Each structure stands twice: as structure tokens, then as C-alpha cells.
């Protein structure tokens, strides 16, 4: 079973790397939002460094949505999802492998390049590292919550917009704790560890709920 799921993970990673993966695209989108914000707010570096973590987190939330609608839809369209449903591995495992592959190609690169984009927003070293760390801990929650929406809208044509409407309200807790953890690192009114640990807890909860709910949605959507 582990081998089958590993094979699925490798397959999805290969697909993401070769067939116009959405990973690179969501990175570009991430950069795009970070670039747009100073144009809207003005190039005041003090202001930007103060709200920098918030901008990075907001950009991460929006960039997570990119490619999420294709997470199960592509497999639904060419029939491989039916094969996976009928395979002798639990559908929850399939969902876990696919979501993990999706996070490895979108969430993880996002967290890794965020210090670089933090430079554009005049973040200092601690804030940059803190934001990257919170993104690393928090983006799995975003992806798993998004996976539920992706599974629910897998068979809907043009499901991208409705997917955003469905999952964005559920991402609010992650956004709150992600931003407050990043800000706690630089301002220091709240200990950094508390919101970070809650963020980790949110990711774990989302992993459990997301996996089972997405599998249920896929199973029952036929």
C-alpha cells in the first residue's frame, strides 16, 4: 500500500514538473501580489515593513488557490480517479498522497522563497525568517482545507470560482494565526511560540478533516 501511494506521489510530482505545473505559476502569482501591493499603498518602506508579513500571508492564501481546482479535476476528467477509487488502497491514502504532492509543489516553494520576497517589502532578518517559518507550518492547513473544496468541485465545470468562495472562509483561522505569529516575532507583544503552535495544530486538524472529508466527497460524488 505504501508503495502504491509513493508511486502516486511520484507520479503527481512528475506531472507537476513536466506538464506545465501550477507550482511555478503560483509562485509567479505570489510575486505578482507582492509587487502590486506597494503600487496600491505607495512605496513607503516603513509602512511596507510593518504590514509585510500580512501581505506575504495574504498572497500565500490567494496563491494556494491557483491550481487547486485541478487537484482532482484532471484525474476526474481522464478517468484515472475512477481507477484510484477502485484500487485496493484506501481513498483517504490517495487523497493524502495527492494533497502532499500538491503542497510539495506549491506550498513548500512558497514558504522557501518568501524571505526573498520579504526583501521587496523591506522586512528585517527576524521578520523574514519568522514569516517563512509560519508559512512552512501554516500552508499545509491551507492546502488541506483547499483539498476539500477541490474534491467537492471536482466534477463541476468552471469550478474554480466556487472553490474560492467555499474554502476562503475556512482559511481565516490559519491566516489569523499565521499573521499574528509573524508579527509577534518582530513586535514582541505576544510570545512567538503560542500562535506558531496553534498554527501547527490547525495544520494537523486540517490534515485529518481535509483528508477524510475530501475522500468522502470524492467517494460520494459518483
Amino acid at each position, binding site marked *: 500500500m505504501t508503495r502504491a501511494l509513493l508511486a502516486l506521489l511520484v507520479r503527481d510530482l512528475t506531472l507537476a514538473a513536466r506538464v506545465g505545473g501550477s507550482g511555478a505559476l503560483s509562485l509567479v502569482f505570489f510575486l505578482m501580489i507582492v509587487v502590486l501591493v506597494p503600487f496600491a499603498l505607495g512605496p513607503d518602506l516603513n509602512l511596507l515593513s510593518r504590514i509585510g508579513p500580512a501581505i506575504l500571508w495574504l498572497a500565500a492564501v490567494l496563491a494556494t488557490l491557483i491550481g487547486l481546482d485541478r487537484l482532482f479535476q484532471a484525474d476526474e476528467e481522464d478517468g484515472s480517479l475512477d481507477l484510484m477509487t477502485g484500487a485496493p488502497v484506501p481513498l483517504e491514502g490517495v487523497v493524502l498522497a495527492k494533497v502532499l504532492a500538491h503542497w510539495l509543489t506549491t506550498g513548500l516553494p512558497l514558504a522557501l522563497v518568501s524571505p526573498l520576497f520579504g526583501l521587496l517589502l523591506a522586512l528585517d532578518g527576524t521578520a523574514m525568517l519568522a514569516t517563512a517559518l509560519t508559512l512552512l507550518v501554516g500552508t499545509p492547513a491551507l492546502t488541506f482545507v483547499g483539498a*476539500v473544496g477541490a474534491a*467537492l*468541485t471536482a466534477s*463541476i465545470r468552471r*469550478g474554480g470560482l*466556487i472553490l474560492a*468562495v*467555499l474554502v*476562503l*472562509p*475556512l482559511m*481565516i*483561522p490559519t491566516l*489569523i*494565526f499565521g499573521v*499574528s505569529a509573524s508579527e509577534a516575532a518582530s513586535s514582541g507583544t*505576544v510570545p512567538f511560540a503560542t500562535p506558531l503552535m*496553534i498554527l501547527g495544530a*490547525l495544520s494537523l*486538524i486540517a490534515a485529518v*478533516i481535509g483528508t477524510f*472529508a475530501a475522500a*468522502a*466527497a470524492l467517494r*460520494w*460524488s*459518483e
Partner: protein
Amino acid sequence: MVGVVEDAILRATPALLLHRTLGYFRRTMWNRIAHPGHFMRWTGPLMPWLAGLSALLLGIGLYLTWFVVPPDYQQGETVRIMYIHVPAAWLGVFFYGSMAFSAIGTLVWRHPLADVAQRAAAPIGAAFTIICLVTGSLWGKPMWGTYWVWDARLTSMLVLFLIYCGIIALWRTIEDPNRAARAIAILTLVGAVNLPIIKFSVNWWSTLHQPASILRMGGSSIDPSMLYPLLLMILAFTLLGVTLHLYGMRTEILRRRVRALTIREAERLDARPASTGSLPVGQAVQGF
């Protein structure tokens, strides 16, 4: 002897008791009441009475609100908004709870009425939530000097409204009612699990961002001259909500019957393109 005691303990386990009670409830009452056909029959004569009673209670409640209730010593006449605001907030939350309950009915028991109930509840709950938000913001303008404050309670209600919107949108997107019902049930349950988390994190966020300075309702205790009209309004609103919900469920059942009949008719026309025979309506649809 020990075996008997253990057996008795096992039998008294709350989960088992709950299971038995639910099982009994389901086998006897529910099957009789909740079959769509039966449902239509027993709610039909009930509806005018329910509608009349809620109109009466709402009339009395509104009369009390407008003419009898004394103005608040701090808030003045604006306190009357509360008699709409609080019941609407209660119903906004109440209908989400009933939707979560129906969602379990859809997924666990595959109950044909559960998803009808759920579908009818969503727009009503969303409407009451928006009434709560609008009345709250109308009250906030004279009292707080602004229509909107990013306070924890307001924000949670707004998020609840957004989740309602998502659920309604998904209903409208998936065409097949059975598939839509299961998708919505999963979404509703995920939302139900998330709502306490959202509530908790919004509380954290609001205490982090702004101290609660303006937000203190008149006093901690409410005078009986205001409390009883408020309770009456809550009762009237609940009755109104239940009436609307039952009407919504009846409409939904009829809509599905029409849908089933249309599909039948299309299939019949497809099978016999040249004939002009009439559709055997009586046996066309079982259940719906």
C-alpha cells in the same frame, strides 16, 4: 453475577443509550412522519395554523416593541432594534445547527427528507444572518458612531454569512439533487467543525488588535419589562423560521416531483417520438 453487572454497565453507556434512542426514534416515528409523501400530507393542513400563529405572535411582539417597551436609559429609542437583532442572530445560528443535523441525516441514514430540509434551511439561515448584520450595523451607527466595527462577534457572524453563501452557491452549481445533497452535507459538516475554530481565532485576533472599549451593552442584566418582549420576539421569530422552513421543504419536494415528471416525460417522448399518449401521472413518481 459479574457478567450481569458488566452487562448492565455496558447497557447504561451513554453512547449506547443514545444509539438505542435514536434507533427507536428512527424506526417508529421518523419513518412514518418523514417519508416525503407522508410529510406533504401531515404538513399541508398544519401550514395555515403555523403561519397564522407566527403572524399573531410577531404582531404582538412588534406592537410591544414599538409601543410598550420603555426606551433604554442609555440607548434611548435605538434599543428597539435589539428586538429584531437578537432573534435574527439566534435563527442564523439555529439554522446552521439544523443544517449540520440534517447533513448527518443525509450521510448516515440516507434520509430522503434530510437533504430537502438542509436545502430549504440554507437561504432562510442566510437571510436571518444578513438581517442580524444589517440591524446590528444600523444600531451601531448611532451608538458606536460607525456602521461597522471589526469586533469578534460581528466578524464571526459575517463569516457565518459567507459560509452560507458558499453552501447556497454549491447547491446551485450541482444539478443532480442527490449528488448535490451529499456534497453539501460534507461541506456543511466541515463548516460546522470549523465554525468554533473560526470563532476562537477571531476572538484571539480581536483581542490582539483592539481592546474591547466601546463594546458594552447597556448593562449586564436586562429589566423584565424588556426581557419578556424579547423572549416573545425570539419565540415569534423561531416560529416564523420554522414555518418558512416547512414551506421551503414543501416547495423543494414539489420541485423534485416536477423534475422527476419532466425527466419521465422526456424519456417517454424519446422512446415514442410519434405517439400522443398521456403520461400515467399516478404511478410516475414514487416518493418524490
